[in-house]
Structures are given as structure tokens and as C-alpha cells.
């Protein structure tokens, strides 16, 4: 178990090798073009970047902060990214860059709003489908940190494995391992819950 987690952590932290052929290099080039346009004053270009990467940021936040806070944080993160876009050196690496901003912002949120989190977690929706989804989401977030982000991006945001790899900057192999091991652990938890 521990060995599995360690391997998964290692894989999660393995960035995509630059020498490996980029399967979606066309998208990368689109990112670079958009970032360049925004830096030259095209504000609408940043709107397109937001449309492309908002699901990624939403998924990352959903695995770390309460659901009620996610939408506002997504807006804050993109506004922060807009202000700091000139600090991005590799324009094609917009995805990994904004993913890192989202992770850091989630950590800041927990430092500042620890008490508020407990209150908002108790707020339940009357919608049963939402309640069920929230329960499963809690199960996923209870998984080791190496897996829950990838699983949420796959199951909640509907992204494929290659998309997750490209947008987060991880290698496809590490995303694949994280997906399969995370899914296996989630199945075990779900079956255990159904049996009880």
C-alpha cells in the first residue's frame, strides 16, 4: 500500500519530458499564440484561455477545497493569472502554470479559512443527485493525494487521460497509473460502503 502510494507520488511529480513527442502539440501552440496575443493587449484571448482551462482549475480546486468556494476561487485564480501572465516564460506551458497556481491557492485557502470550511461542509443540498455526488466526491478526496486530482479530472470534468497529461504537464504514463490505481481504491471503498 505504502509502496503503491510512493510510486504514485513519484509518478505524479514526473513532468512531461521535453524530448517525448507531444501528442497535442497543436493545442500547445494554440496556448502560446493566445498568451502572446494577451501580452500584446488582446483581452479576448484570455477569455479563450479561460474557456480552455477553467475545467482543469475547477477540478483541481474541487479535490482540495469545499465545493461552495470553488467557483469564486476559479475566477480569482484566472484574474491573478491575467495580472501575472508576463511572468510566464514558456508560453506553451500555460496549463501546468495555472494548475500550480490553483494548487497554491487551495493551500492558501486552507490556511486562512479553516473554520469556515467546517461550516460550509455541513451545508447540504436538497437535491439527492447532488448529495450522492458529494458523498462520492468525499470518498475520492479521501484517497491518497496522488490519485484524487486525476480521478476528479477524469470522472467529474470528463477529461480523457491524454488531456489530463497535456494540460497538467504530467507524463501520460503517470496519469495512467494514477487513474488505474485510484479507480481500484475507489471501487474498494464503494463496495465497502455498499456492504455496510
Amino acid at each position, binding site marked *: 500500500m505504502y509502496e503503491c502510494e510512493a510510486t504514485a507520488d513519484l509518478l505524479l511529480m514526473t513532468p512531461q519530458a521535453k524530448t517525448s513527442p507531444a501528442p497535442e502539440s497543436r493545442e500547445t501552440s494554440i496556448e502560446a499564440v493566445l498568451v502572446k496575443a494577451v501580452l500584446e493587449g488582446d483581452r479576448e484571448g484570455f477569455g479563450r484561455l479561460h474557456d480552455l482551462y*477553467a475545467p482543469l482549475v*475547477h477540478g483541481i480546486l474541487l479535490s482540495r477545497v469545499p465545493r461552495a468556494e470553488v467557483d469564486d476561487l476559479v475566477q480569482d485564480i484566472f484574474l491573478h493569472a*491575467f495580472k501575472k501572465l508576463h511572468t510566464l516564460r514558456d508560453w506553451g506551458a500555460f496549463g501546468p502554470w495555472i494548475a500550480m497556481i490553483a494548487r497554491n491557492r487551495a493551500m492558501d485557502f486552507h490556511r486562512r479559512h479553516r473554520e469556515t470550511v467546517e461550516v460550509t461542509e455541513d451545508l447540504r443540498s436538497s437535491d439527492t443527485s447532488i448529495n*450522492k*455526488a*458529494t458523498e462520492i466526491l468525499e470518498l475520492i478526496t479521501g484517497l491518497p493525494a496522488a490519485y484524487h486530482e486525476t480521478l476528479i479530472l477524469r*470522472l467529474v470534468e470528463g477529461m480523457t487521460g491524454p488531456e489530463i497529461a497535456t494540460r497538467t504537464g504530467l507524463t501520460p504514463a503517470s496519469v*495512467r497509473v494514477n487513474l488505474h490505481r485510484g479507480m481500484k481504491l475507489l*471501487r474498494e471503498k464503494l463496495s465497502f460502503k455498499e456492504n455496510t
Partner: protein
Amino acid sequence: MKDDYLWDKSGEPDPEVQQLEEILGTLRYQPRPLEIPDDLIVQRRRNYFPLLAIAATFVIALLAAGLWYRAASQKSAAPLEAQVEQPAPAPTVQQRPEDKTLATENHGPSPLPRVPPRKTQPANSVAFNGKRHNRASAPVLTAAQEKEAEEAKAQLLMALRVASEKLNLVQRKTQGAGGPNQIRNQHKIG
């Protein structure tokens, strides 16, 4: 095959994964337009290359000017070193013919020999190392010049002796002692 569906949604669908997708899909991101405030301006990356280029050019120009100034000062200092004045020869006393006759025949007051004014070294006669050259070496004279100098010296001594005798005589006359110099006589006697 089921693994492929989890990976890229290809192949045979996994019913359990599909069910999870349906349930969790309710939490999916709902697109919202991003509202960027008008006063929020994206900063441009600062390009320091022109500033660096200007600074480097300025530094290089300063260095070149410094080197040029040093080379120029060395060039101007080199002739000074070469033009260090030779030490002036010792003043020679040349008695004029009229003075010689006065000293030997008339026993009159002989004028003092004219000594040419000593040449002072110019202020710019400083060597490059900042040390002042103050060499007082003996003048190089030929044999004829040495002989002439010896004669002039003898004549000068003679003139001084004559002048001294005349001054003694005047002193005796003014003191009213017309006789011989008693002191000298006493001295002679003693």
C-alpha cells in the same frame, strides 16, 4: 478493454465508470464568462536588453577613453624624460680685461665678478616617476678651460687681497693712526 475506456473513453465502456461519470457529472464546471475589470491591465514583460546594451556601451566607452587618456599622457611624458636638462656648468668667472688692469695696476676697488644667474629648473622638468632630477655633477671641462679657470681663480684671490689691503688702509686713516699697524706689529713680534 475496460482500462481503455477509463484512459481515453475508447473501447468497451465500463458500466461502473459510466455510472460514476453520470453521478459526478452534476458537479462539473458550469461555464461562466470571465469578467476582467477594465482597470486590470496585463503587465508586459520587462525587456532589459536595451538597457543592458546602453550600459555596456557606456562602460566600454569609458574604458576606451581611460585607455586613450593614459596612452596620451604617456606620450606627452616621454619627451619630458628625454629633455631633462643637463646640469648647468659651474659658473665660471671671467674677468674682463679692464677689471684685470684695475686689479693689478691701480689697486682700486675691483668689481665683483659677475655670476650668471642660476637657472632654475622648470616645473615641468619632473620625470615620469614623479621624482625631481637634481643631479649636481661636476661640469666636464677641457684642459684649456681648466687652466683658464685656475687663472681666473688666482686673479680673483689677488683682487680680493688687494681690496682687503685697501680697506685696512682706509680703516687706519679714519682711526687716526698713521703709523704702522700695531696689532700687526705685535702679532709679528709675538
